[in-house]
């Protein structure tokens, strides 16, 4: 065993270990189980996710650094891990029917979803550049493959290749920034780095590092102008993967962003604040304006998710515990409403119809009242209408901005939400007002039904009774950075 690493460390990363072992079980089960048993595989995957969630329970109160400061186990990471696992579970639920319709054999599909989740969990816990990088790549490589999983579909292939090429390019930028950080501090541990950097705020090399890392992370969260990949990849990738990408990958990247900037570069706050302020404004505005003209729902949701990344960036700009708490809330709330919208799109998918064009939703309320109602809730929530969860998320983000003295940022956020309502409600109008299109009965399966019900209930419940979530998020946000224990000072 390497020096400084103990068995206790392994205990502390129990959830990651459970997930790793579980993903191997899924991989082996795929070989052992007879062909065409995708359903079984999905349920095994869900059990693995459940087991991982259960293994998080002992760590509710834990706040330690593991393995000489490679990973932190704290409530901040815990919060994100729950979001990732929840998103993964919903993704699996919506994948069963989707893969059947596409005629794709599940193969390593579920295994890769678990791998991506593992990567996200490591990203959220990582307080060392190396750990973060490993987590990031575990996640990214899984997504490259998943995006191109529907092999006969050219768009899917194209999405994968594109995502891979651009991902590699952006990773280069990110790594360049990280190497500068390492070179300037002599350490890869973010918390040690923060102490080293104190007082060096005006070092141009450090500023360069901040910018490059920000650009690399900006790619991952699809912030404008690093967003170009998102619409094409979102549209081309299999719908459940698009959903998981837009929720899980974005959330993990925000966790990484907060770790790097709030834990590793707190002294550079004046520098990156301005940067993220600009990014937030441009990202919100461009995302919403571009979404206005889309007639393909996946593409529209891609731009809308760009816009939402812009909203979340407001929390980074605020940079206060309240801002971080608002980000946590938003990431969770967003997971339910965004995944929910994608579940409805999967419902619409049929052999003959892709189901992601706006016109496919014409008169949906006649064909499938529940799906239409669910979609209505998701759209209202994405648009930020009370009393849905999305309103609460925005309310807190904008509130945090005002609190931190960024009234203008909140104003721009409000204006953007008002614009965004236009394209969200347009879908509602199609569903409830337009004439129904013949012969496209949405398909429901038990798994999809469960997923949809969970997403709808969460979207409404978190809007009507948000208190518990607030308290959890505030407590979790407080464990980031400030009061962190640094065991290893090298």
């Amino acid at each position, binding site marked *: 065993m390497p020096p400084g690493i103990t068995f206790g460390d392994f205990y502390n990363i129990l959830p990651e270990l459970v997930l790793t072992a579980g993903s191997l079980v899924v991989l082996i089960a795929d070989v052992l189980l007879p062909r065409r048993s995708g359903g079984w595989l999905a349920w095994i995957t869900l059990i693995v996710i459940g087991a991982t969630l259960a293994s998080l329970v002992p760590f509710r109160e834990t706040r330690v650094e593991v393995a000489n400061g490679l990973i932190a186990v704290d409530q901040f990471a815990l919060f994100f891990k729950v979001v990732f696992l929840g998103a993964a579970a919903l993704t699996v639920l919506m994948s069963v029917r989707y893969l059947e319709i596409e005629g794709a054999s599940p193969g390593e599909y579920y295994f890769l979803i678990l791998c991506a989740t593992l990567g996200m969990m490591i990203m959220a816990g990582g307080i060392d550049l190396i750990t973060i990088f490993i987590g990031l790549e575990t996640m990214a490589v899984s997504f490259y493959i998943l995006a191109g999983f529907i092999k*006969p579909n*050219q*768009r899917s*292939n*194209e999405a994968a*290749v*594109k995502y891979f*090429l*651009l991902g590699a*390019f952006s990773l280069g*930028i990110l790594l360049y920034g990280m190497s500068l950080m390492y070179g300037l501090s002599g350490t890869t541990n973010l918390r040690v780095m923060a102490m080293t950097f104190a007082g060096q705020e005006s070092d141009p090399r450090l500023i*360069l590092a901040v*910018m490059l890392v*920000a*650009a690399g992370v*900006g*790619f991952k969260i699809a912030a404008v*102008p*690093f967003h*170009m990949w998102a*619409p*094409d990849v979102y549209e*081309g990738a299999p719908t459940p993967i698009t959903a998981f990408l837009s929720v899980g990958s974005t959330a993990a990247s925000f966790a990484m962003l907060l770790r790097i900037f709030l834990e590793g570069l707190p002294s550079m706050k004046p520098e990156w604040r301005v940067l993220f302020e*600009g990014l937030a404004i441009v990202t919100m505005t*461009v995302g919403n*304006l*571009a979404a*206005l*003209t*889309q007639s393909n729902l996946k593409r529209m949701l891609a*731009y809308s998710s760009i816009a939402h990344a812009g909203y979340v960036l407001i929390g980074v700009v605020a940079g206060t515990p309240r801002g971080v708490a608002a980000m946590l809330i938003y990431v969770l709330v967003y997971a339910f409403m965004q995944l929910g919208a994608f579940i409805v799109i999967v419902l619409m998918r049929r052999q003959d119809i892709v189901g992601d064009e706006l016109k496919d939703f014409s008169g949906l309320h006649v064909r499938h*009242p529940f799906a239409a*109602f669910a979609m209505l809730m998701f759209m*209202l929530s994405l648009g930020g*209408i*009370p*009393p849905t969860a999305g309103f609460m998320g925005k*309310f807190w983000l*904008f509130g945090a901005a*005002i609190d931190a003295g960024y*009234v203008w940022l909140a*104003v721009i956020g*409000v*204006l953007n*939400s*008002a*614009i965004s*309502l*236009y394209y969200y*409600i*347009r879908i*509602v*109008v199609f569903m*409830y*007002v*337009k*004439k129904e299109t013949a012969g496209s009965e949405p398909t429901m399966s038990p798994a999809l039904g469960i997923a949809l019900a969970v997403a709808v209930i969460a979207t409404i419940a978190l809007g009507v009774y*948000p*208190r518990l979530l*607030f308290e959890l998020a505030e407590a979790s946000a407080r464990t980031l950075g400030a009061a962190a224990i640094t065991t290893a000072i090298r």
Partner: protein
Amino acid sequence: MLRLIPVLPFLGFLVNASFGRRISRRAAGAVASAVMLASLVVALVAAGNLVGLPNPGRALVEPAFSWISSGDFSVNATLRLDPLSAVMILVVTGIGSLIHIYSTAYMDKETDSEYARYFSYLNLFAAFMLVLVLGSNFLVMFVGWEGVGLCSYLLVGFWYQKESASDAGKKAFIVNRIGDFGFLLGVLLAYVRFSTLDFQDLARSASALSPETSFGTLSLITLLLFVGAAGKSAQIPLHVWLPDAMEGPTPVSALIHAATMVTAGVYLIGRNAVLFSHAPITLTIVAAIGVATALLAATIGLVQNDIKRVLAYSTVSQLGYMFLAMGVGAYAAGIFHLYTHAFFKALLFLGSGAVIHALGGEQDLRRMGGLRRELPIAYSTFLVGAMAIAGVPGLAGFFSKDEVLFQTYAGGHTLLWIVGLVTSLLTAIYMFRLVFLAFHGARGEEPGAAHHPSHLHDAPPAMALALIVLALGSIVAGYAGLPRALGGSNRFERFLEPSFIVSQETRRAAGLQGDLEEAETATASLEVGLMAVSTLVAAGGIGLAFFFFLRNPRAADDMVNRFAGLHRVLANKYYVDEIYDVTVVQPIRIVSEDGLWRGIDVRAIDGTVNMVGETVVGSSEILRRLQAGSVRVSAASLFLGVVLILGYYLWR
């Protein structure tokens, strides 16, 4: 108990939305109407309890639950009944019940599931409207504010077979986005300034300030709120959506686009009367926009040929009166007019609905005429409504409109008063033009009239009931606010005053009239004089309409020919739609389609994939396209982003 008032219609919505297809249409209509009536009963009881409380400061407060709380900041989902919201809930549940009952007969040609869907939306609308007026803070109000908007879109587009119906929805949509911009920003700024969203707390904080004589934060907050109000209540320049919204079923026009939702903007100002009183600059703007809207909409109403469009412009015009009242600080008078207007405008819409129903969907005035013999109930009730809105003495509209005009005059706004008076002349003309063209004269003057079935049916019982009750209301409703000058005690306004409580010093400092009572007793003779003027104006208007549209229709044609240019301008509604198209719609389209679409959304696949077909698998094809563009463009944009950031740091 208060929560029952919105919850009952909401339950009706749930029942019809979930089981609407399985229960009979009779049951669907009965459920929807029953929950509204139940809600009305609860509202009456609640209002009764309220009156029983000691004045001033009477209010029933019912915290539903603690919604948001964190540290020093908390928002409760609280309902609050004070005199202002009491008036509003009675209007919404009272008029709403009648319109639900009316609808059971009006919508009888719909299929069963459509019928249930219609009623579920109507119930949902009522629920949201009640939340809007009962909410004790901006957040709860916002729930209702957006909810009624949503229901309005759904109901306007209800007859989706009509292409124009879904287009109308779109227009309402965009205009309301602009209004919501204002509303949300106003709320946000109010929060930034006062750290609270509760109406009571806001009023208390604002009371401590002195009115802003120059444009300051309060002026900005109130102005933004007014933008929101103008969007909802169709005031210039955001009035364009309301006439188009007439594509919806007629009872919807009556409920949403005449009696309730469109008055939400007036209510918003009334609810924040204290804030507005401290921003005299905004008040001036409100009054000016209000009176301008009243005048312009009335002139447009003169020349429209669609019966519902005339009524729509009339609604816009009457809303202008309400805003005029708000703008001169006569909040109670504005709400009084809102309340009487709800009766007679709902009556007029439902009456026109009875005509349209009888004629199988015909809405063109030129193809009507002489209907008074065949449709006696529709005619007589419609006539009452027309007299009420025209300001015939003794009917509801007379008292409320006169109160608005009197307060305007007494407040020293002579110019506004004159414009208001001219508008009331126009009101009498366009309304009686409608009466004479539709119900008097002879049918068949225009081609197409022959289509009418020879035997017309008058309003069926459910519709007749609603018409008669509303007609009675249009006669007696005004007596609730019988002014002192006529021996009454203006009880309505006195009941409302506590909701707008503003200190005398503030009123004077803001240039508003002092105490109402004082003003009234001092000027009783003035008020009677003004009433006489109004009466003459109403009589003159009716007389002119009689001359031009019944006695001597050729004279009307002559006028049209002589003032052909003016007529064209009016018929085209001052070309506002066209102006918007050129100055706003086209530029946005160009930017978002040509600019954004090509600049930001570089989509490599577009036509190519469709042409090649998705079944073609070939790595060469992928490679070709990757080389051809989008990846390089994306990578370039990524790189450009880095360069831009770098440039910023080097340059600053």
